[in-house]
């Protein structure tokens, strides 16, 4: 019975561990695998984080700042940048000023509150204040734009129901002085005129102050002296410019009458009109500077040449005659010195209309000036350019330019012949603009000597500020009235001066509108009597501020540099040494 015998050894012994066979075992294996995978994923993630932590904390990175940076700038933003003069004096700034309002609901006793308020704000109307405080509204303005002191005083009253609202306000500490240059900003701080308007976006975005080329002190002197002349000669207005001959920076620019930009109401059109840059005028004899320079530069005549100025010129229905008539042959220096119209006309005719036109164009007299103001007058020049225009333009009629044009042009005539556009913004002294050459250096030198001659011995003697070597040219233009005819009594008297004329630093232009002659001027209202004395005083007062030292006018080297030989009709030569 072997086949019934069971070998006990063949039967496996029961094990202690449980073995699961089949589907159970498979599930367990799957779970273990998943756990392993998940575990390793986590381990990987943690090691990445650990590595990153080490990376961030241990290793230094160049891109990361060592210090925490403050978000948002710390500068006080007012919403509109300041405007300062060349020395940094504030011309316009924005302050946030408190305005006083009341919530009448919280006013317990309107009568006593009104009484108290009026002790610190006496300009408020009693009855109006009372009715405001007693009204049913929840918000009434009591006074806008308080000073810090007034705010303090109101707070000190301790009246409940009074509150302050902060508003920003544009302030012009210098008031009228720079009214036409800086201009003004209206409500909502929108620039309305002047630099405020032309640089509106810049002022709005920037926080750096905008630096102008204007010198407040010179501006004051210019304004005061022009006002003096208006008062003395009963003028209706005046304009003046002080311009740096080398950089063409405008150091001072005044238009009278002017206005207070801090007062937003009551500004008349006459006051707001900028005579210095917007007004265009027939400048009269000051144009002879350009006429003479042009003739000398084209070589149609020379300082030793001359023209017959004995008879007036008749053309069409006009007669061109001389104001200070000498009725003889005049040399070129004499034509300039005595401001002879006849001689100037002949000089211009030799040059010719075409070349004259080109010269005026080069001087920038055919387009608005480059000055940074919205108020820029467009010159009035003839078109077509007829011979009669060539004649009248030679002595400054028939072409109208702004005073800025004139000062800018004169600067180009005396600074060696380079024209640089006038600017109201501060130029750094080392970045001198290249500019455009208009006349030769030699011509410019001749012009300087002629200008000196006028002041030393010609029509501009009243401008002689001793020690400062003023050179210049007078101009007296008759203003055109209604219908184009010139009015003999309505004059525009001007003087354009240069100092020191041996090495020009500044051009000074003074212009008085419709002056009337008086006793002190022996009845004259011409440029030599009205504008020249103003230029003299302006130079005397401003030169020390502009760092121009007085010189000995009789020093031989200066006399030699400025000497002009005045040729005589019959070939005799005399030295003009006065």
């Amino acid at each position: 019975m072997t086949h019934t015998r069971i070998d006990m050894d063949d039967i496996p012994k029961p094990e202690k561990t449980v073995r699961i066979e089949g589907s159970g075992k498979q599930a367990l294996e799957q779970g273990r695998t998943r756990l392993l995978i998940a575990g390793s994923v986590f381990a990987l993630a943690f090691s990445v984080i650990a590595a990153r932590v080490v990376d961030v904390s241990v290793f230094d990175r160049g891109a990361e700042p060592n210090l925490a940076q403050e978000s948002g700038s710390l500068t006080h933003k007012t919403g509109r940048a300041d405007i300062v003069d060349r020395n940094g004096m504030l011309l316009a700034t924005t302050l946030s000023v408190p305005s006083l309002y009341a919530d009448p609901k919280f006013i317990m006793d309107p009568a006593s509150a009104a009484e108290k308020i009026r002790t610190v704000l006496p300009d408020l109307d009693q009855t109006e204040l009372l009715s405001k405080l007693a009204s049913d509204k929840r918000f009434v303005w009591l006074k806008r734009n308080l000073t810090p002191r007034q705010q303090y005083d109101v707070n000190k009253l301790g009246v409940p129901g009074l509150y302050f609202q902060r508003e920003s306000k544009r302030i012009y500490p210098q008031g009228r002085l720079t009214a036409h240059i800086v201009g003004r900003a209206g409500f909502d701080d929108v620039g309305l005129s002047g630099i405020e308007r032309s640089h509106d976006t810049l002022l709005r975005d920037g926080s750096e102050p905008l630096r102008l080329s204007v010198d407040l002190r010179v501006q004051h002197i210019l304004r005061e002296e022009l006002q003096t002349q208006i008062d003395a000669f009963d003028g209706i207005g005046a304009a003046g410019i002080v311009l740096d001959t080398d950089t063409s920076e405008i150091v001072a620019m005044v238009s009278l009458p002017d206005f207070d930009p801090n007062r937003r109401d009551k500004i008349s059109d006459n006051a707001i009109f900028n005579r210095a840059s917007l007004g265009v005028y027939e400048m009269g004899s000051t144009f002879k500077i350009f006429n003479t320079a042009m003739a000398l530069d084209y070589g149609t005549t020379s300082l030793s040449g001359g023209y017959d100025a004995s008879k007036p010129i008749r053309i069409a229905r006009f007669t061109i005659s001389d104001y200070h008539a000498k009725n003889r042959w005049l040399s070129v220096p004499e034509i300039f010195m005595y401001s002879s119209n006849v001689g100037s006309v002949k000089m211009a005719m030799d040059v010719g209309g075409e070349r004259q036109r080109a010269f005026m164009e080069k001087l920038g007299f055919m387009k608005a000036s480059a000055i940074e103001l919205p108020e820029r007058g467009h010159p009035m020049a003839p078109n077509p350019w007829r011979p009669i225009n060539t004649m009248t333009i030679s002595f400054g009629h028939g072409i109208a330019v702004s005073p800025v044009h004139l000062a800018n042009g004169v600067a180009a005539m005396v600074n060696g012949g380079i024209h640089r556009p006038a600017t109201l913004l501060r130029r750094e002294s080392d970045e001198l603009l290249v500019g455009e050459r208009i006349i030769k250096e030699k011509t410019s030198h001749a012009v300087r000597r002629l200008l000196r001659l006028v002041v030393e011995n010609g029509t501009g003697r009243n401008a002689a500020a001793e020690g400062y070597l003023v050179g210049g040219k007078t101009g007296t233009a008759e203003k055109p009235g209604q219908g184009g005819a010139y009015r003999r009594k309505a004059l525009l008297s001007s003087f354009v001066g240069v100092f020191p004329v041996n090495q020009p630093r500044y051009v000074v232009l003074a212009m008085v509108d419709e002056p009337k002659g008086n006793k002190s001027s022996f009845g004259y209202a011409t440029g030599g009597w009205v504008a020249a004395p103003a230029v003299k005083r302006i130079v005397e007062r401003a030169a020390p501020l502009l760092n121009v030292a007085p010189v000995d006018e009789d020093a031989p080297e200066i006399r030699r540099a400025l000497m002009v030989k005045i040729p005589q009709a019959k070939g005799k030569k005399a030295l003009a040494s006065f």
Partner: protein
Amino acid sequence: MVRRSTALWLVLATCAGITLFLVKHEVQEREDRLNALHTEILANQEAIQVLKAEWSYLNRPERLERLVRELSEERPADRLQRATLDMLPQPLNGDGETPVTEAAHAGGVVLPMARPVSLGARQ
């Protein structure tokens, strides 16, 4: 063994927690102070702006001129009273060079280096 490491970790965690709290507290305090300082700076800047405007207002040339006229002798400075540095006698340096010899020439008097501008040259 297990208990000791657990305790250690527990102590470490507590320490870290306390430090974190203290640091956070400190940071918050400093932030508050920073904000306060910023407000103060802005207020001061605003005050400076007002003062600048007032300074400019008080420095109106017309006002200065009036004050000078009122408060000083009524005598504007003559332009011929101006002098430049080279017009002044040069200071005597230790080694006593040029100025001394020149002074000796002038009989011990230190003379100006240049003549002033034509004072009354015309009279």
